[in-house]
């Protein structure tokens, strides 16, 4: 059994329009999807969803993120959206954590990854996932949430903009090595 699976699951509050399942109560009815903490069994589906979007298979990376989020009691979140009708079908996921003093930045919530299955787009899954993690960041005292998006990735860029996110005070710099 996975070491992380023994840890108590963190509570994730539902976003508006979504329902919770197994995170502090019985599932409410009528929602198109549920928002809940990821479990070990969700990771292959997360990896498959991501691979379908990015064409890159990196299951060990998702497994590592999942284990890290479970190993640390607070400030790390790996959350999924599922359909109540078919609980095994993953509709989306979000991964984030609170990071402090990187690049001189005061503690803030970072969204590392967000993915929504193409068939589940346009029904508010991404918004609900982002709302859920934002609520957790806020609950832990954060006043800022950040992410990073490739300039050419129009769809995620438009999504985060529509959610009220704007350019922050940092500019990412890079150089070629070798």
């Amino acid at each position: 059994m996975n070491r992380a699976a023994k840890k108590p699951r963190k509570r994730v509050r539902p976003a508006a329009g979504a329902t919770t399942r197994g995170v502090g109560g019985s599932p409410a009815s009528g929602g198109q999807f549920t928002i809940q903490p990821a479990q070990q069994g969700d990771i292959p589906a997360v990896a498959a969803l991501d691979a379908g979007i990015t064409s890159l298979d990196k299951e060990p990376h998702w497994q590592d993120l999942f284990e890290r989020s479970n190993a640390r009691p607070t400030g790390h979140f790996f959350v999924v959206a599922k359909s109540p009708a078919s609980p095994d079908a993953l509709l989306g996921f979000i991964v984030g954590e609170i990071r402090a003093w990187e690049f001189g930045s005061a503690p803030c919530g970072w969204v590392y990854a967000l993915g929504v299955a193409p068939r589940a787009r346009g029904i508010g899954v991404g918004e609900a996932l982002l709302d859920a993690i934002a609520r957790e960041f806020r609950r832990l005292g954060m006043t800022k949430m950040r992410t990073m998006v490739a300039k050419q990735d129009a769809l995620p860029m438009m999504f985060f903009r529509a959610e009220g996110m704007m350019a922050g005070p940092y500019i990412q710099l890079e150089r070629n090595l070798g």
Partner: protein
Amino acid sequence: MKLQISSQLAVFAMVELVANTDRQLTVAEIGAKYGASSHHLAKVMHVLGDAGLVRAVRGAGGGYQFSGNARRTTLLDVIELFERLGPSGQDAGAAGEGTNEGLALHAVLREIDDTVRATLGSITLATFCGLVRRRQMERSATRSSPPANPPANR
């Protein structure tokens, strides 16, 4: 960065039309709000009409209606109908053309241009209208809140 007047008017007109999909707006109505001449706005609306973003409704009560997709049309889509943003290549005959200095300067300008395009290309009209609403709420809250340090009675 500064946009041409036509580009600014086009964005403002789009915002007004997206926010008023239940009725038509005249160029006079839009122009009155932004201090623009009807003549200039009419030219802008003509370009927007050719791009399929607005539809002219003739007759009494006529005006313009938004006919695009506010969740798919970006600020960049609108602005590029009126002006070309940034250099896509070093202009022939430009000072320093072909020199290392010219190429280095061009690389810096291209970096700025990429950021401008990425920013404008990621903000849809719907998102921009949301920004406008947020600004309205912030200003209303500022106006209605009491001053932080009320003057002392004398």
